[in-house]
């Protein structure tokens, strides 16, 4: 199962992909990931490729092969749609991270158009008010855990609790409570079931 995670540097995308990969290993599945590390992380467009259960394959998901697109930001979700296989599912946080180029008026950011494009063109698209849930959990920084929680409703090849446990291992103990809450809020956000 190929999962492409898209978003903006600083949203915790590497943590999300590591948690998925670690859960796969714990469940006895082979796994490959590719991450964006380095210069591009600084507020840039960031993706992680996560390939669960693959053996003779590289780390990059070929275009048109991802079963799931997990977008932590709507424009970034839209930017990486080419990776999704026909009939693939997309889970998209509706909260924009407005880039400086758009704030400066040098680049467009038609949020409403982007969201309606995603919803009208992808049958398997679920949009989630993830930032609200993250705030409810205690911090906007838990948005990645909200999204991981919601992702567990799309039929991962391992139990949700295993994913949560692996994610928490990557976080300092003092933020475990709020991240657990974020994961559960995402998980019970419902609609992702299809």
């Amino acid at each position, binding site marked *: 199962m190929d999962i492409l995670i898209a978003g*903006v*540097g*600083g949203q915790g995308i590497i943590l999300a*992909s*590591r948690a998925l*990969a*670690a859960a*796969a*290993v*714990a469940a*006895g*599945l*082979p*796994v*490959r*990931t*590719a*991450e*964006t*590390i*380095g*210069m*591009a992380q*600084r*507020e*840039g*467009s960031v993706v992680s490729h996560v390939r669960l259960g693959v053996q*003779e*394959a*590289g*780390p*990059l998901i*070929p*275009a*048109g092969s991802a079963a799931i697109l997990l977008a932590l930001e709507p*424009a*970034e979700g*839209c*930017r990486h*749609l080419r990776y999704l296989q*026909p009939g693939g599912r997309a889970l998209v946080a509706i909260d924009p*991270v*407005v*880039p*400086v*180029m*758009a*704030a*400066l008026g*040098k*680049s*467009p*950011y*038609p949020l409403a*158009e*982007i969201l309606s*494009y995603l919803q009208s*063109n992808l049958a398997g698209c679920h949009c989630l008010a993830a930032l609200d849930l993250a705030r409810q959990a205690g911090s*906007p*920084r838990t948005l990645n855990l909200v999204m991981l929680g919601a992702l567990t409703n799309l039929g991962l090849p391992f139990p949700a609790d295993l994913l949560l446990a692996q994610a928490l291992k990557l976080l300092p103990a003092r933020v475990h409570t709020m991240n657990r809450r974020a994961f559960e809020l995402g998980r019970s956000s419902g609609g992702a079931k299809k």
Partner: protein
Amino acid sequence: MPMLLMGNEAIARGAMEAGIHVATSYPGTPASEIMATLMRYAPETGIYCEWSVNEKVAVEIAAGASYAGARALVSMKQMGLNVAADAVMSLAYIGVQGGLVLVVADDPGPHSSQTEQDTRLFARFAGLPVLDPSCPREAYAMTKYAFALSETLNLPVIVRPTTRVSHACQDVEVGTIPPQSPVPGFRKDPRWVIMPSLAARQHVWLNKQQQRAAAEFAASPFNSLRQAGSIGVITSGASYYYVTEALDRLGVQLSLLKIGTPYPLPEEPVKEFLAGLTRVLVVEEQEPVVEDQAIRLAWRHGLPVALSGKHDGHLPREGEFNVATVTAALRRFLALGQESPAPALPAPPPLPTRPPLFCAGCPHRGSFYAFKQAARGQEVIFSGDIGCYTLGAAPPLNAMDTCLCMGASLGLAQGLARVQPGTRLVAFIGDSTFFHAGLPPLVNAVHQQTPLVVVVLDNETTAMTGHQSHPGLASRPGERMVDIARVARACGVETILTADPLDLEQAIAVARQALASPGPALVIFRHPCPQVAKPAGRYQVNQDTCISCRTCIEELGCPALAPAGDRVVIDATCTGCGLCARVCPAAAIEEVV
């Protein structure tokens, strides 16, 4: 159970299991996590680990340890090898005692580099064997093996991962880390003293070692062969998996030779593979290293096989490959025609561009803003350097006119100053880069009395590569901090000024003073990187007093400032640096108390 390891962690693991005594490195994407991993394990392994001042020094330290019979690892990115080249080229002649492995990570794309240079070509130039891992598992196994190979050949060995190996994770079965073995010790011998007469003899030896290395590689398990018909593919490194996936997608079986030892290319397996074939496509990223050697081999042995690859335009020398690139190349090679395009979605709405830029609270924003303010109305050129602050070139700051390589801000500025006497030259260089490559050009500027302002952007870390230490810090017991101002003073810089770049008024005053100073002047703008320091607080926009002028956004381009209708709001990424409050003409931005 296997461990989930990133390629760089797998490399570190392989080195630890090979029983290394010493590891040195200078940070650089995509190689930095190798040393970070070794340092994490150092308390248990007892391996001496350091972030060296630059790659040349790192190689020399590792070579010294190897002379005494210890095993040593040096890790760096591909351009770091250019810095280390002087040491590496001579070391190939002198040879090593204890296993010495250079892990040099290439960055096709490039994702985080100034060039797409191919370290395999460098290995051929230097006469050093090179291993080309296709995945983290192989990177682990190759690194472990490379130490034994180095000792067999008495040569440094290069392991060359690429970004998609270094920054990829995989489940890896690992072995055990042995307790440290005693180091035999340095034995005095004329063989360690390079002189022209010795170099002449060693050059012959080095060339003979190429044949020995090729013979070692002839039986290497890192090369594997599958015969299936008269058409074949030779592939190396990360491309191997793009080839296997592309063949799967196309539903074709071809003969396949996977090369893990691209230089020196072993004759026997390649000859055996080519002998039965009529046409072969060579698939490798970057330069045609395997392709060139295969063509030469086929020519010398008169093999009637047509070799395709980069020379006949089937694949590019530039950029990174993926399954789509390789599938398209195989389609052309096999004359399968174009793939029928997948049913396309309607064109998406226009999407925002999202280049990397300074984080909220980054002190570099203040540094560049201060100098731009201070230099208003003057003819100035801002030369830049390698680090996060290279992003000062982006709008709205647009505060960088040149960037070339590590340390070049100072050298380029001196050349420009010589031919444009009316222009003020300001060279921006980071704290880590200052130590890495800024000291010789600083001495030069003082010696030649070149009018130049050097601005050291000291954020107390090597930020871009993931916050490593450098000589300006004492981050571990036993380290001593080297003070930038004292170094500059000792070099003979007379005007040395220090300010906090987020204290804008003071920073602009210091910038003005430096610009007015005649000789070489040095400014230290010191403020810790917000990614490592605790946030100072938060600011907010008073919506009643905001005059919707957008000065804050347009002058600073801070990602925490977002337009909201015709007003501005500050989001949760604010670290409380306060720079926006200082540029707001309506005093509408206030600290959250």
